[in-house]
């Protein structure tokens, strides 16, 4: 019995951990612990499903370890349950569901089997059936807080927010220290338009688990929307430090606009770089915007352009601090270049790319050389990372990278030769090299 309770507990924690996983996911689309909504949202990507299964398997392993010490109610039902767990191990959820149903046929009041069935159905996307199973569990044992939580999760998937809130509140009455209960109550309260209720729920979750990064992030956003920017920045900072890229993006945005914190574009850029490195597209967009502002020197905002240039310079200086062993003078020029000169080309490439993204011209020039020629013994020519950098920045409309990429296509360096593409990249480019190259391409037969 004890082992099955552990199973339930572990399985439900799995749901919560999915939320955590999704929050740190590099994918920029929002993911929650909920199964895919049939109508509103597309099915989660395979990688996410695989991760969920892995978590489920972890829970099952924990169960099988502890099951030996338990006293089974019914030997036959126990056998089916055992097979079901084994099937879950092999990702065979339909098979597991069949075994769990068999176990329940032999022992209809088996709470572990029914809870397990509910969870399996929920993960299969059959939310209605899962809700039915959870309700039966709660009829059998109304004081089972975790069952209320599981039912609330399923109800949330059905967008039945009021019912979900009731279940969550019931669960928290039975077990006030359920962190996931408070967290999900925060989600439900917000969705129902109760911003203050949501903020309180997240604060409660954080009191129980102060290092709960997702709660910090969500609370930060709530406070931001509630027009409490200073408090929001504190929460976002906690979440950003824990490595949540969205939190890092929003924190960067707060620093960039001076909303709730003293305006500091350099800090903003730093946080955006961190978020962008985790694949946060909005952060990439923001950085691209700053680059354009600095390089395209739009007439409307020269002050903003200068600020952007300075911010990128500060960011480059911070990169130099990551390599205290390098000569300071050299570092002023480019840390990456210094590394290349020290023969640390492999190590230099990511640094050069970061510096180039931060508008370092020496780094950009070095990348051009490295891409075309490589580094003896350390780096082959036509490095894909460098090509991606050129493509990205060329798309942003930066003149130099466009010229370089045009040259790459014109010469077919690491890519199939494509003069048309090269020509289109050079069109309207004020760069002298670009104009010369365009003439050469035009003159070519």
């Amino acid at each position, binding site marked *: 019995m004890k082992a099955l309770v552990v199973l339930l507990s572990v399985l439900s924690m799995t749901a919560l951990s999915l939320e955590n996983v999704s929050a740190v996911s590099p994918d920029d689309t*929002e993911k929650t612990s*909920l199964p895919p909504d049939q109508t*509103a949202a597309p099915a989660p990507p395979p990688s996410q499903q695989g991760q969920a299964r892995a978590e489920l398997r972890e829970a099952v392993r924990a169960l099988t370890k502890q099951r030996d010490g338990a006293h089974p109610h019914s030997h036959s039902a126990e056998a089916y349950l055992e097979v079901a767990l084994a099937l879950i191990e092999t990702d065979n959820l339909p098979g597991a569901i069949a075994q769990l149903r068999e176990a329940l046929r032999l022992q209809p009041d088996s709470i572990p089997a029914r809870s397990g069935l509910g969870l399996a159905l929920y993960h299969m996307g059959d939310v209605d059936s899962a809700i039915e199973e959870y309700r039966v569990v709660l009829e059998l044992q109304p004081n089972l807080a975790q069952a209320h939580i599981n039912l609330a999760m399923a109800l949330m998937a059905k967008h039945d927010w009021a019912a979900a809130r009731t279940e969550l509140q019931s669960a928290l009455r039975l077990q006030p220290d359920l962190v996931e209960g408070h967290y999900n109550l925060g*989600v439900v309260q917000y*969705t129902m*338009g109760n911003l203050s209720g949501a903020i309180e729920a997240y604060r409660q979750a954080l009191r129980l688990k102060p290092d709960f990064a997702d709660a910090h992030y969500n609370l930060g956003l709530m406070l931001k*929307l509630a*027009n409490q920017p200073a408090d929001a920045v504190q929460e976002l900072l906690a979440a950003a430090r824990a490595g949540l890229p969205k939190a890092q993006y*929003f924190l960067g945005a707060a620093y960039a606009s001076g909303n709730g914190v003293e305006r500091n574009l350099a800090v903003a850029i730093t946080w955006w770089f961190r978020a962008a490195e985790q694949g946060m597209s909005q952060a990439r967009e923001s950085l691209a915007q700053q680059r354009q502002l600095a390089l395209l020197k739009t007439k409307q905002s020269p002050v903003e352009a200068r600020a952007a240039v300075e911010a990128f310079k500060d960011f480059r200086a911070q990169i130099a601090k990551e390599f205290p062993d390098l000569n300071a003078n050299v570092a002023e020029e480019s840390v990456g270049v210094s590394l290349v000169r020290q023969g640390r080309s492999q190590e230099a490439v990511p640094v050069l790319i970061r510096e180039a993204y931060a508008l370092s011209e020496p780094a950009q020039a070095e990348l051009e050389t490295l891409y075309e020629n490589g580094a003896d013994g350390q780096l082959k020519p036509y490095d894909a990372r460098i090509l991606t950098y050129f493509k990205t920045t060329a798309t942003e409309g930066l003149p130099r990278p466009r010229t370089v990429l045009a040259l790459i296509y014109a010469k077919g360096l690491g890519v199939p030769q494509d003069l048309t593409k090269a020509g289109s990249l050079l069109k309207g480019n004020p760069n002298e090299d670009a104009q010369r190259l365009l003439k050469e391409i035009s003159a070519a037969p």
Partner: protein
Amino acid sequence: MYAALIGLLTTVIMLAGWFWASNSLTALEWSMYDAWTRLKRPARASPWIVVINRDAATDARFGAGAWDHAVLARFITALGRAGAAVIGLEFPLGEPSPPTRGGIASDAMLSEATKSSGRVVYPVRVNLSEVAPPQQAAPGTVHPSWPIVKTDQLRSFRQAETLTGLLPAFAYQAKGVGHTLVLADEDGVVRRAPLYVMFNDRAIPAFGLALTATFLQVAPEQVSINPGGAVKFQEARFPDGRTAPLITPIDTRGETLINYTGEGTAAFTSFSFLEIWNALEEKEMEKLREWVGGKVVLLLPTTQGPTIRTPVGRHVSAAIIQAHLLNTLLSGNSVKQASPISGVFGALLLTTVAAWLILSLGGWKGFASTAVLAASYLAIVLFTLSFGGWILPVVMPLGALTLATAGATVSLHLTASYRMRLMEGAMLRVQQELVAVREALVCQESNTEGLEEDLEEARAAAARPTGKEQELLQAADILREQLTTARTQETATRHRLQELEHELQSLRAVTSETHRLGDAEQERLRLECDALGIITRDPQVLAVFRDIKKGARSSLSVLIMGEPGTGKELFARAVHRLSPRASQPFIAINMAAISPELFESELFGHVRGSFTGAMGDRKGYFELAHQGTIFMDEIGDLRLEHQGKLLRVLQEKTFYRVGATKPTMIDVRVVAATNKDLQRGVSEGWFREDLYFRLNGMALRLPPLRERRQDLALLAERFVLDAAARIGRNGLTLSEEALAALQAQPWKGNVRELYHCLEQAVALVEGNLLTKHDLRLAPWSPPPDPNSDEAVLDCLRQQEFDMQATARALSWDRSTVTQHLKGMGFRALVESGGDQAKAALTLAGDPALVRTVELKLLEYYEHLVKTLQEFGTPEEAIAACRKRFKNLPDRHYRFVEVLIRKHFDRS
């Protein structure tokens, strides 16, 4: 003045009608504006507006319902980078995102994008309240872009109670927030939008206005609102670089008319959301910049959901209406509605002018000029709408104009009819006075004549030596004085008679006044006359025919007056044929030809055994004419007792057949004709006044042939042709000489006489040419003996027994004429066996003159009797009278003798 009165009256009626059927008339008023909006060529919308639609392809990609707010956030960021001046999102943003649509992260993303973009305008839904809460708006519930206003000044504006549809998290960060309230007119069509809705002490702008204010960089303190006047943006910075005020007219409720340009968003530069998104995904910033750079970008929802009726179409969402409002404001093509008071004034002016035109011009000219007036007003309405943006009222002024036209026309007819009645009354009075004066004149004439005779007798007596010369001379002097007085009185009476006759003539001239006929109308009428057998080119006759045409369709009784032979029956038949009764019987009766004893039986019929000889039931003329027309010719010859019976039938439309116990109902139209002056008959008492008015529904006077000489040739030609055709002789023509002879004839018997003359000539002629000789015209010469009784009587009759006039006509002195009449009178008295009435009728020959003659006879006879009183025996009297009546024609003395003897015999 009268026209102004009609104008005022019709405007008041129209106003009352407007209050009574306000909805219908408002709908009618607006339907014209709607038609103009629909039919005008839709102008391109402002180039500064770009509309982005959520089309089917977009919904297929992003879902048909609400979207992940992160998508909108990215959209805003991209458009901001592409240089869009203002971004308006008509999107449901009132609910927090559920976790399945990105949850709070997406909301925060949109909030962040809204803030960093700094150019987003969101809509908010307002829920209206009936009363204005006077307190100040709670902090945090209002947007800084909403102008603070004095609530008491804008109390007439619509009041918002609560705001929904936009999360505060988005509202805080938005550059502007506007309401999307649109209210339909009473007919369910949305033509206007409230530019501002009050929310406590703030004025929430319409979404389109909020976009405009953001685009033109107008701060809330630069806005001034004047209810019933305009909303003014003090320093609007237009995209072309100029800074100028933007003025938009509003009514007292803060509403402005939307100048729709085409249906939906067809007139706008528009893209699908997917196009923009693809460009964004492909990072085609240049393309995006070209599309949206410096413009107001409006993202509209799908056109699903409730649709609103507008003048340009049915399927329009509130968002599209806001797009049209934005275009109206930005393009400065505001439409202004003239105040209702101007409509009333316009109506007053138009109605007065229309009434004046109808009253002064009358007829088709009046109608044509009012039509031109209406058309001119419509043209002005169209011009001001197309070029000035002013909507002038149409229904009220034109409705009132129509009413005024009808009113003035009716009034014109009523006045004319009333004037006619007054004239008739006046004529009757004059006639009556004339009769009285005539009678007085007759008495005075007789008195004068008597006095003259007495004076002569006295003089003769005085000349004889009887010893009483002195006394006789004195008596003669007295008689002379009396005679002078009598003559003076007679002269005065004659003078008065002349005056009255003149007056009567003038009245007749006024009542018989006819409108002149145009050439084209004459020709048309002539052809129509021809079709009915009326041959004429005479404008007078054609005017009569026109009146017949007008009156024929009604059931009015018709009285045709004219000399014998002028074609009264022909016109009576025309009345019948032109009336709706044309297919029913037409019964013509000559009233003079019906024996008085059989009058009732003939007219009303009889039942079997009702009198001796009534062998079976017989229908009378009235019954035969049931549902048709009865034509009663010579109605003036109807006896008084029969007039009463006829009147009852005409009044009650029922009668009893002779011997019947049940009444018979009839429906007949009466056309009566006479050659007598019935008005005079009424005055003289031989025609009933009530019957006269009953018959005189429409009076027509047919001119005698001598007054329509131009018709003579036409008639002669036609009669010759007809007569020749009847006897099978074609090619017979009338010589010029014969025609001239015809023209010279007086034609007392009018057309009938002419017809018979020509018929006879055609029958007797031998060649193919009718000559003067063939016409066998009786030479027109006076009677051979002017002294003969016939000649004198004829002249007397012609002069209506006016002694003086007759004496003048015969070139005699008056006493000679008097003596002749006296002699003829004595003869008639003798021949009638003393029956004065019969004697008078014999002499008068015309009932109209009987009374005058009777009076004269009475005077003559009384004078004779008075003379006889002095004598004891008939012989003495005869001897004395021979002297006294020595001027009497000899042939009449024997009648005097007879009368004297009869007198003595009786006494």
